[in-house]
């Protein structure tokens, strides 16, 4: 490379710049620029010559081109040195702002654009991109400069495959480049930075080609084809493990990929990338047997660069984004297991081997912290842990048993922790459970035996899940237990759940999860519509739904089976259809056959259906019912007794008071599952509960006493305790909405007043609008023995008129006037419901540990108390009972209970209190200086605030928000009540501590 040329180039550039600066006319500029362009590029005919004025045509024509070699030399020198940046600056700023609009199109293309389009792309980009951000300088027409720069970028990078050219330039560069090592790396990363920053710098809405989506798409396509070309040109025999051999091209692509990912366009990148890899992998897989596919993949040109590119991405965050997106997209495209595995392998195998960060990403992060679809989980396991393709059935032991065991242990240690069950999201739990299950499925008994503590942890994890109130969590436990038992003893699988008897376990846990969310959604809608009603726990609804659904599915399956049994092609024997007996012939030895068969046809059977409804023992006395329920060996008796129990109790006979406690006790202790056939337990259970509810409703005091004793006694189990609480809840609700007939009170004179009318003329009572009485004349008879009167009556609402008149006798019935009225019967019994139940919750006795193991009972108990206080809402009893309930809720073990289930109940109860207390009561408490209730309410506010801010459980959060809202409403009502009393009495008469008023009732921010 001669110094001479460099000098000449610089001198020429200097001249051109000077003439541009000095020019007065656009043609002058064109001819100046052209004089340089002609030296650098092989320009053909002067197509633009016609569009410039005569004056400069000669000038243009006089420029003589150099020889081809010289042109090349000049080009190199021009772009390598300082010449291009200097000229580019003038072109991009001065010319663009002053002259470019006047350029004829052909001139712009041939003379102006050519410097950039045919230039060295790496330099061109470095020159153009800074134009986009130079916002400080005001000497130029900035918008012209910007739009020109954007136009050029689109022209160079998008339309003319600039990125592809850059890759190519790097290819050549490596052979003859003085820049080495870090400096080069820096330059590359700077360049990548520039390229990827273009969409950010471009003004939005000006050019769609520069929007990040399209731009990155195009860049990616170019880069990838560039890389493929590079890969094909790579000399064979290059050691793939040679670490020194990292090419600038690869570095550059890696940088760009990393930056694209960082800028959040990994999806765009992948939408280009996946089809390419997939296509290549497919081509390849279809052609080869699976012996040593790894090796072949590694040597195959066109596939080698992938893993190198990924390896070159030093930004681990970018890799993570990339791989996450990759997994999600593959899952969305329903890629099959083998292809997905190979795609992962092609992309990541080098970095997985060489970079511990990437390895931990796959093994830790993707298994424990992220949530992917289940198919992705399988791929991850195959790629990162088993390290064998899913189709690798021949070599079952080809995977790394050691790594598998290690991973399994890590999963188990997380999975089995109680805290994990209590505090992590359900999706996360399902994912980790699935990971564990899939690991276990791959393990053998020996592997498992090698890890003693794993077995223990699995059992622990299963048992702590089995007692969860959530159906889904229990299902996870039973699935893991099933897999575990299959590993330990394949012949004897352990089914903890009746519903799953399939050979393959569905690790998805999905349908129920969507169901759950829908339930939750509707639940929240309810809350908005009717805050209090909506507060019912989604949990319960959920559980029931799941169980129902399980049954339905089961039933459906059975039906399907039965359906299949009917073979449409079955050959039917007409004789068999006729219902003849095989033994018929020999026994039928009297009479002539013909006459018999003739007469026998007359013996058509009647309907033979039979039920045993009439055979059931009929109970008419409660004492008999109690007796029958105690005889647990007489199955029919117990069933019959249960069937009639509710009716008999509702009839409320006189002796009910005396048998109530006995009956309550026996009803609780009946074991429904003992005497019912499978599938009917629920109806029996329902009858039992209904009977108990009826009992509490008709005879509250006696039965509640018995039930409360049972609730905390050691003789009942958890399910019975829950049942007791359920029936109490039901009874409280029923009492609160009691309906009964009440005759309408009609004032009637017992003694008729003396009047001028004879006694036998009916009085003028009756509905309004009735006409006056008229005597009915009976024609034909002279003597009238009885007096009959009639009158017109207006029709009653809803009455269909059939006749013309209605005749009423003197004694008219008033039964129709009875009205259905409802009245809350609950408050008088509220104390009997609540106080005994609140007594013993924190005592730990034999078999009773509400705060710890039996937390479900605790949750139910609090729920029941909440329903109770709500049922007594707005009655004075509610205000009285609210403070002991608040005291109970405020106990730290309850309000900050570790189980979300309990916290939900507490939130529910707290909201119920807020609904139940009458604002005037709060107001009067405030005025009387009684701080108990206001303090409790204030505690609810702060505590709900805490929960809303920090709780992990979503439902808790929602409930807490509702709670805060209710609190603010109560506060508002209370302050109104206070105002009104102040208005009446005047402030000075009240010894109201103002600090108390302002301090205790705050309207929270919601």
């Amino acid at each position, binding site marked *: 490379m001669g110094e001479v040329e460099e000098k000449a180039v610089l001198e020429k550039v200097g001249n051109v710049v000077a003439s541009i600066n000095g020019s007065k006319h656009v043609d002058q500029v064109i001819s100046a620029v052209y004089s340089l362009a002609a030296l650098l590029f092989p320009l053909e005919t002067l197509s633009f010559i016609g569009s410039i004025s005569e004056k400069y045509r000669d000038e243009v024509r006089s420029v003589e081109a150099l020889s081809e070699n010289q042109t090349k030399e000049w080009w190199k020198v021009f772009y390598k040195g300082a010449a291009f940046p200097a000229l580019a600056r003038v072109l991009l700023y001065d010319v663009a702002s002053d002259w470019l609009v006047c350029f004829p199109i052909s001139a712009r293309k041939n003379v102006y654009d050519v410097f950039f389009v045919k230039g060295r792309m790496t330099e061109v980009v470095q020159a153009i991109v800074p134009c986009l951000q130079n916002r400080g300088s005001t000497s130029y027409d900035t918008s012209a400069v910007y739009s020109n720069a954007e136009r050029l970028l689109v022209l160079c990078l998008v339309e003319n495959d600039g990125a592809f050219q850059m890759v190519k330039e790097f290819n050549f560069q490596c052979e003859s480049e003085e820049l080495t090592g870090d400096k080069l790396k820096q330059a590359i990363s700077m360049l990548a930075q520039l390229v990827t920053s273009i969409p950010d710098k471009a003004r939005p809405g000006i050019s769609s080609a520069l929007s990040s989506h399209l731009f990155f798409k195009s860049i990616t396509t170019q880069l990838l084809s560039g890389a493929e070309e590079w890969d094909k040109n790579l000399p064979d025999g290059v050691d793939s493990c040679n670490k020194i051999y990292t090419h600038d091209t690869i570095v550059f692509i890696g940088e760009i990929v990393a930056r694209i990912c960082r800028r959040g366009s990994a999806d765009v990148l992948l939408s280009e990338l996946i089809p390419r890899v997939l296509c290549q992998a497919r081509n390849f897989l279809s052609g080869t047997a699976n012996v040593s596919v790894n090796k072949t993949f590694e040597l195959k040109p066109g596939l080698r660069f992938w893993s190198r590119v990924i390896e070159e991405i030093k930004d681990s965050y970018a890799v993570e984004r990339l791989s996450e997106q990759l997994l999600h997209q593959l899952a969305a495209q329903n890629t099959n297991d083998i292809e997905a595995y190979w795609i992962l392998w092609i992309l990541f195998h080098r970095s997985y081997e060489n970079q511990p960060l990437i390895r931990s990403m796959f093994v830790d992060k993707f298994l424990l912290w992220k949530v992917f679809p289940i198919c992705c989980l399988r791929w991850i396991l195959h790629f990162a842990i088993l390290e064998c393709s899913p189709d690798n059935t021949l070599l079952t032991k080809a995977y790394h048993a050691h790594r598998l065991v290690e991973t399994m242990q890590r999963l188990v240690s997380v999975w089995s922790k109680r805290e994990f069950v209590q505090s992590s999201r359900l999706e996360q739990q399902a994912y980790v459970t699935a990971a564990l299950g899939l690991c276990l499925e791959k393990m053998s008994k020996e592997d498992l035996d090698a890890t003693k503590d794993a077995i223990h942890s699995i059992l622990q994890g299963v048992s702590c899940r089995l007692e969860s109130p959530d159906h889904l969590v229990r299902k996870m436990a039973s699935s893991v237990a099933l897999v575990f038992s299959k590993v330990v003893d394949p012949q004897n699988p352990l089914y903890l759940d009746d519903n799953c008897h399939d050979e393959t376990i569905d690790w998805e846990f999905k349908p129920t999860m969507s169901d759950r969310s829908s339930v939750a959604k509707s639940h929240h809608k309810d809350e908005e519509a009717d805050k209090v009603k909506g507060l019912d726990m989604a949990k319960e609804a959920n559980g029931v739904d799941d169980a129902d659904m399980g049954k339905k599915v089961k039933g459906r399956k059975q039906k399907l089976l039965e359906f299949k049994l009917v073979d449409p092609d079955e*050959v*039917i*024997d*007409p004789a068999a*259809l*006729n*219902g*003849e*007996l095989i*033994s*018929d012939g*020999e*026994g*039928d*030895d*009297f*009479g002539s056959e013909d006459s*018999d068969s003739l*007469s*026998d046809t*007359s*013996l*058509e*059977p*009647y*309907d*033979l259906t*039979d039920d*045993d409804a*009439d*055979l059931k023992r009929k109970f008419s006395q409660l004492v008999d019912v109690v007796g029958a329920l105690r005889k647990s060996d007489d199955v029919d008796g117990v069933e019959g007794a249960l069937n009639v129990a509710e009716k008999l109790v509702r009839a409320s006979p006189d002796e009910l008071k005396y048998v109530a406690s006995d009956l309550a006790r026996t009803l609780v202790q009946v074991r429904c599952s003992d005497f019912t056939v499978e599938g009917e337990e629920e109806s029996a259970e329902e009858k039992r509960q209904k009977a108990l509810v009826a009992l509490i409703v008709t005879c509250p005091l006696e039965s509640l006493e018995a039930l409360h004793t049972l609730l905390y006694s050691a003789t009942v189990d958890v399910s019975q305790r829950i049942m007791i609480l359920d029936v109490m809840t039901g009874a409280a609700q029923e009492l609160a909405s009691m309906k009964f007939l009440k005759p309408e009170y009609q004032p009637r004179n017992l003694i008729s007043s003396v009047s001028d009318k004879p006694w036998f003329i009916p009085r003028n009572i009756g509905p309004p609008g009735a006409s006056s009485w008229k005597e009915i004349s009976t024609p034909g008879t002279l003597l009238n023995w009885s007096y009959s009167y009639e009158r017109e009556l207006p029709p009653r609402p809803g009455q269909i008129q059939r006749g013309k008149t209605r005749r009423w006798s003197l004694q008219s019935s008033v039964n129709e006037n009875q009205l259905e009225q409802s009245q809350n019967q609950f408050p008088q019994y509220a104390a009997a419901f609540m106080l005994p139940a609140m007594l013993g919750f924190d005592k730990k006795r034999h078999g009773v540990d509400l705060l710890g193991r039996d937390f479900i009972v605790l949750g139910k108990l609090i729920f029941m108390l909440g329903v109770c206080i709500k049922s007594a809402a707005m009655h004075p009893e509610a205000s009285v009972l609210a403070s002991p309930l608040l005291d109970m809720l405020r106990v730290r073990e309850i309000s900050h209970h570790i189980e979300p289930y309990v916290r939900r109940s507490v939130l529910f109860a707290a909201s119920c209190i807020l609904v139940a207390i009458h604002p005037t009561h709060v107001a009067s408490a405030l005025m009387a200086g009684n701080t108990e209730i206001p303090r409790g309410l204030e505690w609810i506010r702060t505590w709900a605030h805490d929960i809303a801010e920090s709780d992990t459980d979503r439902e808790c959060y929602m409930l807490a928000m509702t709670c805060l809202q209710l609190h603010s409403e109560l506060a508002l009502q209370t302050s109104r009540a206070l105002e009104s009393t102040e208005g009446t009495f005047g402030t000075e008469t009240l010894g109201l501590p103002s600090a108390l008023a302002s301090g205790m009732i705050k309207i929270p921010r919601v």
Partner: protein
Amino acid sequence: MLQWQALRWKAIKEEEDYRMSKRPPPDPVAVLRGHRASVMDVCFHPSKNILFSGAADGELRIWDSVQRRTISSALVHNAAHGIIGLAASPLIGDDKVVSQGRDGTVKYWDIGDGDLSRNPLVTIKTNSYHFCKLSLVKKFAFGPCQTGVPENCQDAEGGETTFQGNQMESIEDSEQVKGPKYVAVSGEQSSVVELWDLASAEKFLQLPHLSSGLPNTTTKARGMCMALQAFLSPESQGYLNVLTGYEDGSMAWWDVRNPGVPMNSVKFHKEPVLSLCIDGACSGGISGAADEKLVFFSLDYQLGSALVKKEITLERPGIAGTSIRPDGKIAAFAGWDHRVRVYNYRKGIALAILKYHHATCNTVSFSADSKLLASSSEDTTVAMWELYPPQTVT
């Protein structure tokens, strides 16, 4: 083609089934009320439209089965013990009826003018206090082997056995039927069956015959005799045969010529056999027991064999009474489950489940003309049913 026909068959059959299955079981045509205690037994008069019923309080009622009214009523047995069995048969005389009480007596009554005589003709003191109903001798009425009847059975030959459906047995002249006026009852010792002559009130024989050898241990091991049926088989040359059912569920077939050991003994049931009935041709019968099974069996005198033809398992145990209609077409079973079940006797196909009674059914009985079925129950009623009336030949 074959398949197509089969499908057509199936369609027709299904349609038929559908139509038939819609037919609800019939209700009783009449209910006879009047008894004040569980009606233990009913039987029709062999030729007149008369029904006898006996209750657990000792009351014997005579009903007009056409008018459905009580003709007369009398306390014929001790009220504390009551009647357990009633029987009427052409063999013992036209206007006679035998009643058995749990007071240890069997009484032989004359109902000359539709009313009971004040005192019974004969009173037999059997001293047995159990539940086994007595049995009169059942004489074969018709059958395929009429031609080969031995000489002792000329009575059967002499009487024209017609197929007109009714009064098959009543035509026989009284002289000829005089001979075997026997009644079989379970004896003082409850595992033994005793045969008494009604005319002389003398014990004629007991089975197993104690004097004929050692006291039979095998019979004792069977437990109490619970059901009885005495009959004259066409092939037995006029000698009585008795079929007995025992407490352990076994049945024995005795021939009076060999009272020591039964001809055959079989065990069809697991629980005590409660009732037995032999068809008119004496070639088969049915049995009901305290278990869930109904057994249709066949008897072959030549081989001395009793074989199960069909066994039907019910959902609820206990059959207290059985009866085969004289024309041998249908059979009825009185169940502890308050139902009367009707079966096609020859094929063993279920025909109807009759629900009316609301307590245990004790007996079923068909009228001699096959038109009526009477069932008695613990609910103190007697229900009369008309099922599959026989076609009258005009």
